[in-house]
């Protein structure tokens, strides 16, 4: 699950500590930091990531590498994580050290389905307006860069305002189902056959399922590139251990754990499990929607989503 950037401006108790793309290597870690981290002995991580797939492998590897530092985690959806952190901040009783949106980046795409012949799969944006998709498409209802708001932004950025609105108005007539859950659940409904075409999903999710034999294919119709984040909570109880953990997450070692779990690693030296998920190897064009761009326009994009699609 991605962390919506809207949170970052909303959460005054939190500051973004690291840019996900900054490569770091294990050698540069200051031994003073490790000492200080060991003294603190714990990191409290409020996570939105999958516990069994990525959280526990990361925690186990970190605890093995730095014995004496325990990583405690609490898993919840981003809304709950945000609510907690902000309330802790306001009560001046901060318990969390770290929250995330995953240290990876995701192109976002549409996926196909086994009832739909491959030749029918849309190739370009206008194919989405074909009447045969009417009432048969779905996307998440989550107001985030990885959801409809980000999609609308990407349309504006690539087609321009006027053409963008024209396209979106036509798309709205297709009556896309708004699924009150996240991208992964939307993709599962696609694989399960409920919606033959879904928009705004993460391509690595489709790749993981396809590798298990699911009849799903991610389509390169306006891929959107956006970032996951990890962030340190201001006034958290264990700042040094947290910094050390973030360094570990972003290191080649930590990124390899991400790749192994099927996520797209941000580190340039680490390839994805299916290498063509990354645009430079998969050779596809994408539209960038960075956290800064999203923050600046989220309100407008979301209001267009509400007006046209809800």
């Amino acid at each position, binding site marked *: 699950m991605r962390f919506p950037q809207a949170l970052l401006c909303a959460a005054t108790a939190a500051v973004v500590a690291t840019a996900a793309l900054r490569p770091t290597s294990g050698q540069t870690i200051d031994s003073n930091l490790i000492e200080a981290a060991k003294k603190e002995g714990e990191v409290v991580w409020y996570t939105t990531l999958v516990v069994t797939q990525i959280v526990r492998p990361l925690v186990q590897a970190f605890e093995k590498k730095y014995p004496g530092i325990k990583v405690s985690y609490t898993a919840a959806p981003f809304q709950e994580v945000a609510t907690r952190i902000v309330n802790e901040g306001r009560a001046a009783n901060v318990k969390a050290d770290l929250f995330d949106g995953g240290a990876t980046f995701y192109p976002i795409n549409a996926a196909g389905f086994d009832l739909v012949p491959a030749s029918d799969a849309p190739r370009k944006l206008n194919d989405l307006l074909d009447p045969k998709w009417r009432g048969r498409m779905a996307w998440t209802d989550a107001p985030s860069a990885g959801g409809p708001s980000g999609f609308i932004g990407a349309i504006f950025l690539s087609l321009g305002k006027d053409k963008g609105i024209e396209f979106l108005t036509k798309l709205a007539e297709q009556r896309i189902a708004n699924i009150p859950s996240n991208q992964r659940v939307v993709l599962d409904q696609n694989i399960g056959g409920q919606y033959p075409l879904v928009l705004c999903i993460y391509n690595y999710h489709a790749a993981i399922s396809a590798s298990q*034999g699911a009849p799903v294919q991610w389509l390169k119709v306006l891929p959107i590139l956006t970032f996951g984040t990890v962030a340190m909570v201001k006034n958290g109880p264990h700042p040094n251990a947290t910094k050390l953990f973030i360094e570990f997450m972003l290191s080649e070692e930590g990124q390899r754990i991400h790749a192994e779990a099927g996520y797209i690693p941000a580190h340039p030296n680490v390839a994805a499990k299916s290498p063509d998920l990354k645009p430079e190897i998969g050779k596809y064009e994408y539209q960038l929607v960075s956290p800064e761009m999203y923050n600046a326009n989220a309100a407008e994009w979301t209001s267009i989503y509400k007006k046209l699609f809800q």
Partner: protein
Amino acid sequence: VKRPPVAAGLRLRLICQQRVRAEKPVTGNSEITLSKAAAGHVKGPARLSGPVLRYFRLVDYPLIALSTAIIVIIGLLVLPPIWTLIRTSFANTMPDFSTAGFTLDHYINLVTGRNLAVSAVNSIVFATCATALSLIIGGILAWLIERTDAPLKGLAYVTTIVSLGTPYILYVTAWLYLLGRAGPFNDLYRTWIDPTSTPFNVNSLTGMILIEGFLWSPLVFLLLSSTFRAANADMEEAARMSGASILDTIRLISMKLARPALFALALFVFIRNIETFEVPALVGMPGRVDVLTTELYKSIKEVPPRIGYASAFSVVMLIIVGALLLLYGRISKQAERYASITGKGFRPRPFALGRGRWIAGLVILVNFAIVLALPISAILWTSLMPFVRPMRWVALGTATIKHYEAVVSSPYYLGLALNTLLVSAGTATVVMLLALVAGWLAARRKPGAAMIDQLITMPLVFPGLVLGIALLEIGLRFPIPIYGTLWLIGLAFVIRYMPYGMRYAYSGVMQIHSELEQAASVSGANIRESLRFIVAPLLIPALTSGWLFIFLIAAKEMSLPLLLAGPSSQTISVAMFDLWANGQGGEVAALGLMWVTFMTIVATIFYRVARRLSLTSFGH
């Protein structure tokens, strides 16, 4: 030969004897001695004159003390979140989620939302039909099980307990899948009748009503089964002997006797359905069926959540519920007429259905198939598939047990299971103890009755997130460090489930004619004794059903633990949500099924023990 309910009668006699022994021989005015005994709390020989004593009889101090204590306890639990709710509904929400200033915007937004008329009509249709469906399914089943010689009774209990124990998201997802475009029903229709159409559309008002109706039928079943179990069969038997048909007996006797309970229940389920937003969101939203709570759901899923809007909605609901309860209070004043457990003593005998037995068996079987077997088979299917896929023979070849292996090989789940058991069993016990006293005070119209009933029912209208945020704040500022511990989750659960416990206890007390307590009181029993030896034993069926219901429903509650659980107080439902939301449909299905099996075993053991206790009270 009729005899009083065994335990209650015995205890009564015992108390009488003890008191008689304790009393000194009657001296002077015998009328005073009698009223003294009736007052129940004046001990020793009479030294007071008539009028003063009458005053003491009117002002029943222990009773007032008890009422006050209960009001204070419930008030402490309920009022802080209510205060937060009201404050938030009138304040601006700042970007840092704090509240400041005064505004009516949230209330204005309630009325100016899109298509209010359509949503309101949808809401009423949805709530009414879903309530009716739950009442019909649960009511018929409860009557068959408790009052007749229908076969397959065990199956009805299994259906109820297993479906109550099934995590909510699994149950709803299973139905979405079954009735969905690629589900078996549409698939079969396409294979055999028309390959191009999709006759069942689950994302519709009908789909919502069906799923919500199925979800709450176990509540109705459990509540009514305790009502029917404790009801006196004399009148039914008399009706049958006088030549009334089975249907007439049900209509004219059984249903009328259960009327106060039925009415309370209908009202309760209706309120629940009006304010629910999970099914409307998961089932209705993708099909654009808007109800009043659709906007509520959206408001709390935004970041920052529009808590002001959600609070305003809840405040309005609070007022509506308050009004409905007042209305109900007025009706139930005559409830004495319906009480059928009297001092006369009775022994309910099952109603012989004759040839109708087999129809009854069929009804139980159909209920089992629809409410349980279908969704569970969908969950089982999911748990065996490497990824979510339509039910087809060819897919069977890919069946795998890897999801079960994943669950079994994670010792991590054991700790979560233990946490969950502790917090749900604790919650159920505390709630039912509170409800026993509160339900008795309220149903008997004791001092403060209306206030107790209103207070304890208020949490019913809290959306989980609103209650959760209130408790987050309380937990963070609480002098004892309960933030992030199981205690905070337990506290939240107690507040959330008090209304449910109250309904069980209340309708239970309504059935017991107050003459039993009056007799106890005349014999000199004090409040504690009459609650302990008369009311509680007769209430065992209701208390058991209530405990079971709260235990099972608390164990699967998600919204509160997601917000309140700390690293060491994670519950199984948090793990399930995490898996489900992250595409681990197979693993969550496997974990869910194993969990349901475990919960069913726990619930069955509890039920057996409670049934034995009830046996000593009712002799059946």
